[in-house]
């Protein structure tokens, strides 16, 4: 049988490094995608595309401590492209779809107030939403945000301050008392 030319590459150390990185970061990246995608299919696409891109860039994998942030950056671009209509059809596996469908079957119990908060949150510009999400959901601090967003810590501080102000305003418009929502956590 014909052997493709890339067969020789599989013994490469790169693959081992990638697989170790994948084991460590699959869950946070899955979480990142699930928290931002309305459907399990979209989340599966985002996870698949993020790791496919990471594999293509395996030669520039950052040190272990930074891989999660690096992948958040890739995932963020992947989702931004999806939002711009660049849906890349991934050849998703039945297993991945099944895993995600199960995970999506769980949904947090909504209260009226949470619904209002969710609405106010949705009304924010996607950059603000992403910034606040990275803090509240991924638990990133200023230095980590600066890495993911590829900007200075000072820029992060300013953008975060503005995003929080806009969120507070949106909440006020939605009739949610602002002091109930502790956006500030760092």
């Amino acid at each position, binding site marked *: 049988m014909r052997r493709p030319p890339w067969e020789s590459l*599989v013994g490469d150390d790169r693959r081992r490094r990638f*697989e170790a990185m994948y084991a460590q970061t699959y869950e946070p990246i899955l979480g990142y995608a699930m928290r931002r995608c309305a459907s399990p299919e979209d989340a599966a696409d985002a996870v*698949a595309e993020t*790791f496919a891109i990471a594999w293509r860039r395996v030669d520039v994998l950052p040190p272990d401590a930074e891989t999660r942030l690096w992948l958040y950056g*890739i995932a963020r671009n992947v989702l931004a492209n999806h939002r711009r209509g660049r*849906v*890349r059809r991934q050849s998703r596996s039945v297993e991945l779809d099944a895993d995600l469908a199960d*995970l999506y079957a*769980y949904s947090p119990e909504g209260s009226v107030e949470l619904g209002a908060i969710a609405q106010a949150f949705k009304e924010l510009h996607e950059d603000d939403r992403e910034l606040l999400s990275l803090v509240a959901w991924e638990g990133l601090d200023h230095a980590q945000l600066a890495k993911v967003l590829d900007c200075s810590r000072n820029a992060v501080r300013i953008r975060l301050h503005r995003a929080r102000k806009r969120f507070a305003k949106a909440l006020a418009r939605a009739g949610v008392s602002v002091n109930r*929502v502790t956006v500030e956590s760092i």
Partner: protein
Amino acid sequence: MNELRQLARVRDEQLAGQASGAGARALLAAIVVEDPGTEDAGSRAPRSRRTRRLVVGLVATAALAIVAVMGPTLLERDATSYANAAIDIELRGDEYVARIKDPFADHALYAEAFQAMSLDIGMELIPASPTQVGNIVRMGFAGTTMADTLGGGLEPEGCTIGHEGCFLTVTVSKGFKGRGVFYLARPAKPGERYQASGEAGRKGEMLEGYDADGRTVGKVAAEAHRRGLRVVFQIIEPHPDGHGFSLSRDQSAKVGDHWYVWAAEPEQVGTVRLLVTEKHLRNNPVTGK
């Protein structure tokens, strides 16, 4: 935990163990069959290369938490061939070649044959549209070493299943130590939904030579009906905020002839699925072009 955190669909802690689940393993296996690090990021979907005939060496890592348990029934033997009604396997040189004689057989028959050769190989044949038949759609492995390889395709290459002498085959290296799983595309039975498909307009598919992208539902449906095909719809709904799309398979929704088609995909034998929107869009939401 503040309210914003509660808006999160899931917390990372709730995903513990997912990395060793079937979905994660299948995705990893699909990604690393690509040639790594040679492309500009984002230039191509992994699908384009994955669907060809492949042979790949395997490496065991911590990412693959499943360990093949080699029970006493799998002790080394010197068997060089085995056959049942569904499959025959023989040792040719340094690899086992399994020819699938009945692609619709009970999967247990395939497993039985591999087990008889002391190989821990699972094989599932999944229904696929004509141009995909013979491709390894996915494969997975665990507990393997650098010396272990899995592969397969059509034999002879490019032949058509159903013609005499044409077989779906898989190959497993002699002395394969780990556990492997193949998902191989087989022809679909009438009424069976494809689990792997090529674009409907592609040569060998139902709408061969016809480009449905950007045309109205009325025009595409007329062409499909002219070819004796049934049409089902998948509705692409742009999100209200103007960013992104979601897909719905609700067949009770009324799709008008004036709606727009952005992709046509084989659904099952004799049926194409049109991905549609009500309003015209500047870019094709499926391809992004």
